[in-house]
């Protein structure tokens, strides 16, 4: 049965697509001297091709896995959304998300990610003198590719992006020239505990790209670009490649080095084959999924309350301001009658008012709820299969 959610998502009218302008060939011939011959057709100087797929190096893959199992301190307070109350502590938010920057190059429509590094919690920019800038100057000395092409995120919240990661992604877009090529790789750590691997690649959807460029995520930009949690990101196919030395190393993990008599007590290879347990675990794992979904709903409703409060605040201030303008007009009219000098009119603009709240957190939380619910459904499906074994 097709899910109702998917049908709803598909019925959203598509945002206006930008038409690609035809590229000049003269500038490309001038620059062709800088690139070696074999890369000429492949290096995308004017960003004519959109990124079509992502190819991860196995090094980056392993580094993401390692980062996800690090024990990290809770994030510093300046990363929380600036609002009246901090969100209530839930079991979901007790796992710190792991963020990092991806480095690489895009060739011929394929974004090749060669290396990565981890970011400390609390970093939201990649500009000059930030942590990533300083680290990149060091990495450059050891011939690491130094152009950030995206962000990776390892999270327990159901495989969706968080607000911090989207902000980092827009920062990467700005650094790389804003051509819409920044890639987000999401590793779902909550599924990994159950033995499933879930690593997906995304890129900002078209409407979201506009909003990211402006840096504003309030209601007007949302409706203009038609952004909901399902159109925020568009997914890209992903595969993993290994250079020669590393694949040699990986094969030594599974193949035994010499012809020893295999003993039944200790495995002869470092990585013995694994079997997923066939026992039906849904009695324990389903409750944790339900708990996570409830937690994310709690966070979502908390955020909705905050935004509602801020909206009411803005409306109140607006009313007060209009009242003062009206009073000023009446005052001026009175003084005109009396022939006195007039007060200056107050502009209709509200200075120092409460700013429009950013809706990005809402979108991300909405996506979180959906991701967790999807995970719940998948787990239930697996349980059904196991039941019939």
């Amino acid at each position, binding site marked *: 049965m097709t*899910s*109702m*959610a998917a049908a709803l*998502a598909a019925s*959203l009218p598509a945002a206006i697509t930008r038409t690609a302008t035809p590229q000049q060939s003269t500038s490309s011939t001038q620059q062709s001297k800088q690139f070696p011959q074999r890369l000429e057709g492949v290096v995308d100087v004017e960003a004519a091709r959109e990124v079509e797929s992502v190819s991860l190096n196995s*090094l980056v893959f*392993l580094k993401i*896995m390692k980062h*996800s199992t690090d*024990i990290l301190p809770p994030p510093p307070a300046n990363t929380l959304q600036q609002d009246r109350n901090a969100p209530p502590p839930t079991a979901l938010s007790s796992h710190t998300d792991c963020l990092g920057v991806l480095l690489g190059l895009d060739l011929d429509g394929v974004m090749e990610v060669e290396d990565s590094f*981890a*970011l400390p*919690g609390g970093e939201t920019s990649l500009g000059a003198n930030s942590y990533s800038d300083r680290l990149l100057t060091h990495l450059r*000395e*050891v011939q690491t590719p130094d152009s950030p092409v995206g962000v990776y995120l390892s999270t327990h919240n159901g495989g969706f992006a968080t607000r911090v990661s989207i902000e980092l992604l827009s920062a990467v877009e700005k650094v790389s020239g804003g051509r819409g090529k920044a890639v987000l790789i999401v590793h779902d*750590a909550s599924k*990994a505990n159950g033995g*499933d*691997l*879930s*690593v997906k690649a995304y890129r900002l959807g078209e409407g979201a790209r506009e909003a990211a460029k402006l840096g504003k995520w309030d*209601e007007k930009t*949302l*409706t203009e670009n*038609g952004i*909901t*949690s399902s159109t925020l990101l568009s997914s890209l196919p*992903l595969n*993993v490649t290994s250079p020669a*030395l590393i694949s*040699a190393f*990986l094969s*030594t*993990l599974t193949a035994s*080095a*010499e012809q020893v008599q295999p003993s*039944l007590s*200790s495995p002869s290879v470092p990585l013995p*084959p694994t*079997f*997923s347990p066939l026992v*039906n675990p849904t*009695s324990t794992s389903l409750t944790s*999924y339900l708990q996570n*979904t409830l937690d994310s709903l709690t966070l979502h409703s908390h955020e909705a309350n905050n935004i509602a409060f801020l909206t009411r605040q803005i409306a109140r201030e607006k009313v007060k301001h209009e009242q003062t303008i009206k009073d000023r007009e009446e005052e001026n009219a009175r003084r005109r009658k009396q022939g006195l000098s007039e007060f200056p009119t107050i502009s209709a603009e509200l200075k120092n008012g409460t700013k429009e709240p950013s809706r990005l957190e809402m979108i991300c939380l*909405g*996506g979180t*709820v959906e991701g967790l*619910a*999807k995970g719940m*459904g998948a*787990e*239930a*499906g*697996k*349980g*059904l*299969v196991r*039941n*019939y074994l």
Partner: protein
Amino acid sequence: MSLDTSSSAIHLNLPPTSSTQIRPPTLITVHPSVVASILTHHSRKSTEADSSNRVIGTLMGSRSENGQEIDIRSSFAVPHKEDENQIAVDMPFQQGMMQLLGKTGAKESIVGWYATHPTLNAYSALIQNYFTGETSPHPSVHLTIDTELDPSGKGLGIKGWVSTQLGLSPKPENCAFLPVPVVIKYADSERAALDLLTAPAPTPSPSLPPLPTLSASLTQLSTLIDQALTYVQSVNSGSQNPDAEVGRYLLEGLGRWSGSDNEDEGGVKAGLQDTLTVSYLSNLVRSQVELAGRLALLQQTPAS
């Protein structure tokens, strides 16, 4: 599960050489990402004539309580120049990197250094001395990887070493390197990722839904059962010598299995109800979220 070729050496737990209670490490556990990182650094080194045939870098990780086990979690390369007369290592680079990496919050410290060539010469001793200064009072660990794929080393010989002073008067360029066993260590949640990487080519995409892995595991189990069945049949027909150990394992496995299918009847019914409810609930929540997103868009459009 040693990464190196199995040797017949026994590793003794030596008593501490000084009055302090610090013992030399007896086991080194390495995360696979460290090995991949070292190999990548090696493949990126410049191919000019005056650079040596190895790259070196720093290892970071944590130690166990008594210093016996060292867990290596990450690494980074350090630029260095080496020729017959002298060796130079970029120390401010390393200190800068340590300072930056300390901000990420993971509790890691320097535990040693690595080199991508199996030779251990006087320069290695000098560098080892420098690193021991950095990791004092604990001894520092040296890891060598044979990237020449020397046939006598049987593949990537990943070896670990600790150093002790040698000679009558301690000089920085004299030391003896003692081998330490090296083992790969990974967390359970990374197991699926490692399976993916070591699967026969072409590597499947990591974003597949979980059901194919379940079906792969089921086919694997059925082939194994077939293998066991043919073995038992051949032993029964006398064409193969029975091995008592294998027989005992099979008996134990079957015994565990047959005792547990009494409560399955009730289990299926109860489990079915629950899983169907949850599946319906998840679809409901997803549709709700989608509707909420669309409604948020509607609020701003002017009434027509």
